[in-house]
C-alpha cells in the first residue's frame, strides 16, 4: 500500500515538495473561486509574492551557508 502511494506521489507530484505545495495551492485556489471571491483574490495576489519570498529566503540561507563555509575553510 505504501509503495502504491509512493508511486502515485512520484507520478502525480514528483519528488519536489515545492511542486507538491504548488499543486495544493492551485487546488485551494480552484476551490476558493467558487467558495469565496475575496479569498481567491487574496490567495493569488498575495500568495504568489509570499511564496516567492519564502523560496528566496531558503535560497539566501543556503547561499549564505555556502559562503560562510568557504570563508572558514
Amino acid at each position: 500500500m505504501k509503495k502504491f502511494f509512493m508511486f502515485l506521489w512520484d507520478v502525480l507530484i514528483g519528488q519536489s515538495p515545492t511542486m507538491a505545495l504548488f499543486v495544493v495551492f492551485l487546488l485551494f485556489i480552484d476551490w476558493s473561486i467558487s467558495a469565496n471571491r475575496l479569498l481567491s483574490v487574496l490567495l493569488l495576489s498575495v500568495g504568489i509574492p509570499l511564496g516567492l519570498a519564502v523560496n528566496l529566503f531558503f535560497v539566501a540561507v543556503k547561499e549564505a551557508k555556502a559562503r560562510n563555509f568557504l570563508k572558514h575553510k
Partner: protein
Amino acid sequence: MGAFVAAVLAAFLASSVEAVEALTIVLAAGYARSFKVALQGAFSALIVLVLLAGLLGEAVTNFIPIRAVRIIVGGYLLIFGLGWLKKAILRAAGFKALHDEDEAFKEEFSRIKAQSEVVKGSKVNLLKDPGFNTAFKGVLLEGFEIILIVISLGSSTRKLLAVSLGALLAVLIVGLIGVVVKKQLTKVPENLIKAVVGVMLTSFGVFWAGQGVGVHWYLNDLFLLVLIGINITAFFFVSVILSRVKDVSKFVKSQ
C-alpha cells in the same frame, strides 16, 4: 485609457530589455567585423521576424479563445516574471552579481574578432561571415522574444495596437540610442529595467492567469495597479530581508 497606457508601458519596458540585448550583439558584431555586415545581418533577421509576426499574430488573435490564451499567457508571463523578479531581488540583496553590459560587450567583441581573423583575406560567403551571423542570430532571437511579448500581451488585453506601439517605441528608442552612443549601453540601468519588468510581468501574469481560471478581480483592470503595488512592495521588502540574511553571519553559524 489607463489600460491602454499600461499596455504600452508594459510592452515598452519588456521589449526595451530585449532590444538592448539585441543592440549589444549588433554593436559588438559591427565593431569587431564591420557595421555594414552587422546591419545586413540585423535587417535580414528583421525581415524574417516581420513574416513570422504576420503569421503568428493572425493565428493567435483570430483562432484561440481568450480564456485559454489568458491561462497560457498568464502562466508564461508569471513563470518569466517570477524568474526575473527572483534574479532582481537576489541582485539587489547582493547574492548575485549585477549584469555588466560592458563586460558582455568585451566578451562578444573578442569572440567575433578571433573568428574574423580566421576568415580575413579570404573571400567568404556573407552567410558564413561571423559578423553577419552573430547580428542575425542575436536580432532573430531577441526579436522573436519581442514578438512573443507583443502577441501575448496584445492578445490577452485585446490591445494589440497599444502593445505593438510600446514595442515599436522601445525598438526605435533603443536603436536611436545605439546610433547616437555607438558603444556599449553601460549607462542604461538594465538591472533596474529588469526589476521593473519582473514586477510588471508577474503582475500581468497573476492577473491574466487569475482571469483565465475564473477569479473575479475587484475594480476589473484597475486591480493590475494593486498587483503592481504588491509586487513592488514584495521586491523591496524581500530585498531588505535577504540583505540582512547575507550580512548576519551569526545567523548562518547558528543554523
